[in-house]
């Protein structure tokens, strides 16, 4: 077989195949960030409320998850959970693993955001006859979320980068598909890695610019 030029690495089929991988990468990231925002908010509020025993208990579990490598959680969900009867298709296994991990990270951000809201706001709202729950949902949370947008976007950036770890369990996302393309011909390796770097960079740098914009306009 003749050694092919590096541009053959990017023939129409391979490009389409890689784009499909990008779609999966983005899909996993977006679904995970939404799920973990929900779960993270609940855990964050529990930690912020300082309910005796309960908050400490939840915080401890949260700390354990936060301090494990994501790669380990991914392997665990995909390879170990089915032993307990939990069968997940590879896409959802990745989403669950990433969401579990990211919820723990976002819970910290939510707690930090809530703590940054002026205490006086609570008292003012309560004085105006709002209940605890109402104060939280209508007064405090909206302000806290506004401040949290930039750190949440940086978590989204981490998510996009971390989906590459799922190539370890053969999820057909961008990095895995890159590996498949350079399995066709080993001369493709450098061009493929360069292009993967560029794609991830453009995606994440774009996100970081959005974060910066929010930072400037909401502060």
């Amino acid at each position, binding site marked *: 077989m003749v050694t092919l030029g590096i541009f053959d690495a990017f023939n129409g089929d391979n490009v389409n195949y890689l784009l499909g991988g990008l779609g999966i990468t983005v899909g996993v990231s977006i679904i995970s960030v939404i799920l973990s925002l929900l779960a993270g908010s609940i855990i964050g509020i529990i930690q912020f409320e300082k309910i005796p*025993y309960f908050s400490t208990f939840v915080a401890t579990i949260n700390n354990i998850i936060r301090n494990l490598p994501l790669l380990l959680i991914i392997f665990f969900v995909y*390879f170990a959970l*089915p*032993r307990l009867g939990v*069968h997940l298709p590879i896409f959802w296994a990745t989403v669950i693993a990433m969401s579990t991990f990211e919820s723990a990270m976002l819970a910290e951000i939510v707690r930090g955001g809530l703590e940054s809201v002026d205490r006086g706001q609570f008292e003012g709202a309560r004085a105006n006859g709002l209940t605890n729950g109402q104060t939280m949902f209508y007064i405090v949370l909206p302000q806290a979320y506004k401040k949290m947008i930039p750190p949440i976007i940086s978590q989204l950036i981490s998510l996009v980068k971390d989906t590459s770890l799922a190539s370890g369990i053969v999820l057909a996302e961008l990095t895995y*598909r890159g*590996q498949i393309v350079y399995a*066709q011909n*080993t001369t493709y390796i450098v061009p493929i890695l360069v292009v993967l770097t560029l794609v991830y960079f453009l995606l994440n740098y774009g996100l970081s610019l959005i974060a910066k914009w929010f930072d400037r306009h909401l502060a």
Partner: protein
Amino acid sequence: MEKAKKRRFGIIATIVLALAIVLGIAWAMQTAANNSKHQDTLTRVEKRGQIIWGVKADTKLFGLMNTKTATPEGFDIDMAKALTVQISKQTGVPMSASFVPVASASKIQLLKNTNIDGTISTMTITPERAKVVDYTQPYFDAGQSLLVKKDSGINSIQDMNDSKYTVLVVVGTTAAQMTKQFAPKAHVIALQDYASAMQALKAGQGQAMSTDNAILYGFATENPDYHLVGGVFTKAPYGIAFDHDQKPMVDQTNRALDTLKKNGIYNQLIKKWFSNVPGLDWHELEVKS
């Protein structure tokens, strides 16, 4: 008052959550025990009308992803298709074949987890593995060999028995374990997949890559600077694997395999995939009638 209420809530919530976790674990273990009970693969695939095969997606000749169709292609894939057709005929239940790419390290897990029904993925039959999965008759005779650079001066696995050499293998393959027995002094580094191992060899991360000859031939075709040396130093017949204790499925597959060997389809597939591999006498792979 307010504080006491919060405290009471905290205590109750903690107990509820702790109980939920404990009960959850207990339930999970119970389910795990139930799930480990026998589940018949043949019944499952007949009910579904589909056999989900675990196959390789990064291995030339046996299973390599075609990026145009996003499906893998190779000898293993064609065998799986032919077997599915044959099993459908035998059982009278029409079934289709679907493919899930697996890595060497994960295929047994996926089989046990019933993510896949069977796997035909360059998998060597070993006594150790036969304790946890069921194998069919061998469908391909491979053996472990060595791929080195042509000017490396290495001629056999014995030459590698030196702590200055590194042999590259893939996690979860038999070569990962056997290499240490033949070259105890050499370093052995296991990579995630064959493509990475080949890349690593080209990047000089090791002096040789070791796995089944059939797979190495695929790499030698594409990289003319590299060749196989020392012949085959272990026997590594490939088998089709199912979960443990799946006699009906294994019997059906063995019958189908026999038929394919007799009616010439097997030889056609051998010719299709191996007749153009330099250095390999593909006629040796054919079944003689």
